[in-house]
């Protein structure tokens, strides 16, 4: 395979209705829809990103949101180079789900590069996750970012950050 055709599989993981599909749609198509449509199974998209020395195609596997961690289909994660954990900053319970998912993935797939995205930063007045909690995760080496699929804030940077790490 040529350098120009470098492809990396990235999985989107997180509880339901945290905005995984919206983040992919914002990143791939630069659009956002207010309508919530739940994902069943997995949706696969592709987005090429130009890094400093190469072109990388990210194959984005947008997995159905599951709060039942045990029901996560690990077959979807096979061959993933990295993943994005998504939580909803207005729903603290979704951060718990993200933490559990990360444990499950680490146990089955080993250590993979990942980014924790706290989505819906535009809903400032409903934001419910404290800075202290996030700092603790950062102190443990986690890459934590805030994003808004609605405005696009932080979305491009998060994917680029992960792309650099999986392409390296």
């Amino acid at each position: 395979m040529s350098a120009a055709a470098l492809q990396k599989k990235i999985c989107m993981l997180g509880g339901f209705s945290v905005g995984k599909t919206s983040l992919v749609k914002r990143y791939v198509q630069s659009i956002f829809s207010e309508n919530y449509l739940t994902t069943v199974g997995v949706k696969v998209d592709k987005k090429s990103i130009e890094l400093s020395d190469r072109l990388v195609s990210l194959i984005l596997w947008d997995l159905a949101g599951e709060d039942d961690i045990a029901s996560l289909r690990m077959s979807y994660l096979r061959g993933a180079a990295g993943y994005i954990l998504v939580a909803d900053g207005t729903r603290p319970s979704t951060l718990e789900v993200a933490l559990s998912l990360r444990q499950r993935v680490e146990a089955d797939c080993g250590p993979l590069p990942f980014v924790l995205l706290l989505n819906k930063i535009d809903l400032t007045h409903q934001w419910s996750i404290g800075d202290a909690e996030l700092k603790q995760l950062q102190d443990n080496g986690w890459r934590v970012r805030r994003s808004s699929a609605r405005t696009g804030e932080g979305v491009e940077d998060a994917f680029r950050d992960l792309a650099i790490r999986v392409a390296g």
Partner: protein
Amino acid sequence: MEALPASVTERLRVLTHGERAVAYLQIDADLSLVAAGGRLDNYGLTTLRLGEPALEQAFFLEGLLPLVENPYFVPSVELAGGRAANLHFYLETDTLWVVLLDVTAERDATRRVQQKAYEMTLLQEKEALLNRQLEAANAALRATQRELQASQEALVRTHQRLQCELTEAALYVRSLLPAPMSHPFVAEWYFVPSTELGGDAFGYHWIDPDHFAIYLLDVCGHGVGPSLFSVAVLHLLQAASLRDVDFRHPAQVLSALNDTYQMQSNSDLYFTLWYGVYQPATRRLDFACAGHPAAVLVDLRSGDVELLKPKGLPIGLMPDVTYACETIRVPPGRYLHLLSDGAFEVQRADGSALSFSEFLKLMTHTPQEGQIELRQLYEQLVALRGTATLEDDFSIMRFAF
């Protein structure tokens, strides 16, 4: 598996092929696409190039090849165009087969059910969040209520303490007022402050065996400040403690007080004062007035009234004021009244004001002697006003010379 009749097998093949939009990819060991067929268009796989890398053309295969588990199954994968497919992988010798079966209808049915379940869960989460916020708001409200109650209790305690102190202060002011006397002439008074502490003060005392000083002052305003000020002036008059002032000369006393108590240096307080000196041996009365209501000399037998009010500005308004002193001889049977403006500036219940002449009529039509008479005068005024007390301090002194 039990063998199926050829007819059934054929029917199944037709059904599967028709309803599942069967498509396949054949990939060699180098991961090149060697063959493809079936309903490829259903999955957006319309531009496949045989002999070229499979992963570049069917990007959903990324990460899944080479196969590490045979056979392998990935359910419900949404591909280009929105169609969902089950992906079946299996190896035959060196050839990898990928079979795609359309499950869009099942995916959509599941989505409808799941969507409702998730929306319900989101609503429950929102309700729980609102309940928590409500509980937090209630807790904060209760805490604020407790704080408010504590503040109110502290306020009540402070108010009660201040009330006690004000009552003590009022008692002290009253203790400074002179005792009624009956010899060598009758002197009596009646005093009701509008609040616990008023700005009125008065007194009488012998300067020497021949000279009897009488005075009534009214500091502007009510409350602690004016009351303290009136007490200070009262002390000064009682102690005759103005340097180089002969307290037998009323004009001198008023001028000296005016020099001492300019309002600029006394919290903008000023006062009115009627000051007189009576000599019983000669029945001579010298008097001066600093903006105070006239003293009223009444002949109780005839009802004739004489107003004693020399001109003069209130004490403290401006410096270097000269006060006039007047002198009369008091015939026997005359009653001298000193009063504050609060004693006659009374508004009736209907809003009309009591005139001074009406007040004088009230005063002269109560001929009985004694303190009860002055109290009756006060009660009549209160009845006219239609309230429990008068608006201003009520102070009146009577001397039967």
